[in-house]
């Protein structure tokens, strides 16, 4: 019974994840006074890509071929481990929130290798930058969770869930987490999913050589990762209301904020991202300090 619900929950999350991306895109276009692609466009894209033949580089090895599978596996595994529609159902014995962060790192490791595998300059550039940003994002990522866990008294996901009341420490750590989320999901101040301009792309450069089903898997993994991170954000750092209904409302609200940020801001220069991520790290340390002060 429990297993069924957990799997159902993960399947629901996977099924809903492209919708969030579509929603953000649609809202962005609305703000820009454009009509934009339909809400369900990400689903169409994935179906279309699954229906296409694949072309791969002659220089590449099996790493290039297995990387999309590893990436989607890590995303789905993270979906299995994290709370979403039915938060009271959890797999026990799979560790804590740190484990989820490390699982994402595994997917990224292989994507970065795949970027180098084709021997294209773009791929290498993308890998280098992706690893650069993620390495700098990691401290803020972990310490913001650390701060929230200190308040909860444990790092286990189920003990993080009940949340508490809004405190300064929670707001600081939540903001730090959100800044990292934007970086991890290749959102605007750090990266831009919409551009394929050679010199500015980061995540897209890394997966430039992919086509067909592999690209579909990578895109789907991106959607899932985004929704998993959003779920963690709303459960741990926004302790308002409970139940599936509230969960959906909160996710949509955060997605809307993301869309507004994407429209309002420009992408930063690569080396400005350092400041951005250090700010996030300092914010998370401030959260720990605030927690100790009891606010």
């Amino acid at each position, binding site marked *: 019974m429990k297993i069924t619900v957990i799997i159902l929950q993960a399947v629901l999350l996977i099924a809903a994840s492209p919708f969030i991306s579509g929603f953000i895109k649609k809202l962005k276009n609305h703000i820009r006074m454009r009509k934009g692609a339909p809400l369900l466009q990400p689903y169409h894209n994935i179906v279309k890509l699954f229906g296409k033949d*694949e*072309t*791969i*580089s*002659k*220089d*590449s090895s099996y*790493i290039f071929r297995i990387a999309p*599978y*590893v990436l989607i*596996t*890590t995303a789905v*595994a993270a979906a*299995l481990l994290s709370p979403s529609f039915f938060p009271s159902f959890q797999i*026990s*014995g*799979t*560790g*804590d929130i*740190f*484990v989820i962060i*490390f699982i994402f790192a*595994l997917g*990224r*490791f292989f994507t970065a*290798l795949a*970027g*180098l*595998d*084709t*021997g*294209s*300059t773009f791929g*290498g*550039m993308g*890998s280098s930058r992706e*690893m*650069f940003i*993620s*390495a*700098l994002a*990691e*401290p803020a990522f*972990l*310490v913001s969770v*650390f*701060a929230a*866990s*200190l308040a909860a008294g*444990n*790092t286990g996901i189920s003990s993080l869930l009940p949340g508490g009341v809004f405190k300064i420490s929670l707001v600081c750590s939540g903001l730090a987490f959100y800044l990292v989320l934007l970086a991890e999901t290749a959102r605007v101040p750090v990266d831009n999913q919409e551009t394929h301009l050679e010199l500015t792309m980061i995540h897209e450069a890394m997966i430039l*050589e992919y086509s067909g*089903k592999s690209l579909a*898997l990578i895109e789907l993994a991106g959607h899932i990762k985004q929704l998993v991170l959003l779920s963690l954000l709303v459960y741990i750092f926004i302790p308002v209301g409970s139940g599936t209904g509230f969960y959906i409302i909160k996710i949509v609200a955060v997605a809307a904020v993301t869309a507004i940020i994407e429209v309002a801001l420009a992408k930063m220069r690569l*080396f400005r991202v350092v400041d951005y991520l250090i700010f996030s790290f300092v914010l*998370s*340390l401030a959260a*720990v*300090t605030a927690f*100790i002060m009891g606010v």
Partner: protein
Amino acid sequence: MESFIVDWRLSFDALSIFFGFVILLVAIPSWVYSIGYMQGLYSRGRIRFAKILFFFFILSMLLVVFSSNVLFFLIAWELMSLLSYFLVTLDSHEEKASRAGLIYILMTHVGTTFMTAAFLIIYSYSGSFDFIAFKETCLLLPSTIKTVVFLCFVVGFGTKAGLIPFHIWLPYAHPEAPSHISSVMSGAMIKIGVYGFIRFVLFILGVSELWWGNLILVLAIISSVGGILYALMEKDLKKMLAYSSIENIGLIMLGIGGYMVFIKMNQPLLAVFSLAAALYHTVNHAIFKTLLFMCSGAILKTCGTKNMEKLGGLIKLMPVTAFCFLIGALSISAMPPLNGFMSEWLILQTLFSGALAGATFPKMKIFLALLTGLLALTGGLAAACFVKAFGISFLAGTRSKKTETANDSGWTMKAPMIFLTGLIFIFGIFAAPVFKVLIDTVSSVSGLNSGGAAFTFNVMSLAPRNNSTMSLNSLLLFGILVITEVTIFAVVKIITKKRTVTCAHTWACGYYRTTERNQYTSTGFSKPFRVAFSFILMPSRKLEKIRDSHYHVKAFKYEVHTKQFLNEYFYKPVIKRLFRFAEWSRKLQQGSVHIYIGYIFLAIVFLIVFLKRF
């Protein structure tokens, strides 16, 4: 002078047995590996010489960990240092190797000097060189003396372990030694420094002040971040691994520093947990670092270079080596569910539990949160470093002629690599039973009663905090990953049954095709890091354009160097001063007999006065 008679008895307590196990775990595969590795590289006489040296080197390391008398310990220690010096300089026809050996032997003796000083200070109180006598004396030492002894031990054992700022010998000695020696040095010998530290500081001297632990934590985190940053800048495969050893020693010392801090915070349970996590990382690092050095040795043998910029495409030519290196790289970058991840996760849990527990130490919480952040940074940089190492050396096309003919080495070299790769999985998946053994080891040596049951939920699960429901079953985690992978693979296979896969050239922006010169390089890969961390790395670059005319650039030269912060601002000035002092003191040696007779006269006068006075 009776006590100067060396007591040759061995003692086997849990800690010694653990380190003995680590040494053998590294030494036996390296021994097998060396048979294939040395063949063809050295003459037969030299191979025999190297084998004998290797045997005695391992023996001396075992004697260090099993000795129960300080004099015996020192003799074995010195033997270990000297034997490894000869092994480092096995390629003595190369100037680089002898220079590396010189730096190594100098630094290791600086360490030994401090160690001996510490031993003699304690001896002056105890009158005996026995470990037990030492331990009893240390309880009664005045606190200033204790601090001095502690600092001497930090320098002494820190030098052997390669802790920053005493690390400078490591990036010279490890890459220049033959690969099987590098793997033993990195996998086992630097751990002897850790052993000495645990034995003498933690269990003989005893932790008497909170700041001791804090000092170790700070040095540890500096080693971690610094080590991996320099590793990331490195394009020499073995040098990169040597720097990464510094990082891992930092992680191990983080656990040991945790023990020291938690003892003073009155958290014995946590202290045991912390030290066990450090020991777990010790054995894990021994496994994957040995493996990675073996892989780079295999590359060095077949390609003749260990410069990443000249490698590439090796995954197709040497698939076994590539796979082993990949697993090693994944493990050292703490990717679940491999062993490196398990120990790093445990260290992370240590820091978190410490922050949670120390209600009366609010500053400690912020400090531990900061350490967590820096530990996360280390993890991120390590992942970048090993993406670079694997991606540049093994993937894409070959970058030089010599690499094109590379092939996998013989079975004597492959078998130990495959064995160690298997161990990475085993130590990752069966983390809980292994960790339980380590907990028992620590609690039996330290006398702090905790019991392994406190941290294991059931046979396969780790539970870092015994009052919570959170536990990690690495077999379950592994199972989830594998089942998900298989399911997804099957689903994708079914829905894309009719689709074809064609091979074509990499997209070259419409140009004919890309060549290996378009591939990203190691230097290029680490460029963002070089810029972002320029305040530590102090990079300097040189651009040179060779022109036909004003408009046409014929060739382009680009050089980039990073500086070693400590070398520039500490070791170089110190060495300069030393030489200047030596120059100055040469004035004493005039060569004239009259002046020498004058010296003798002065000395006699001095002695007479001295004897009268005292």
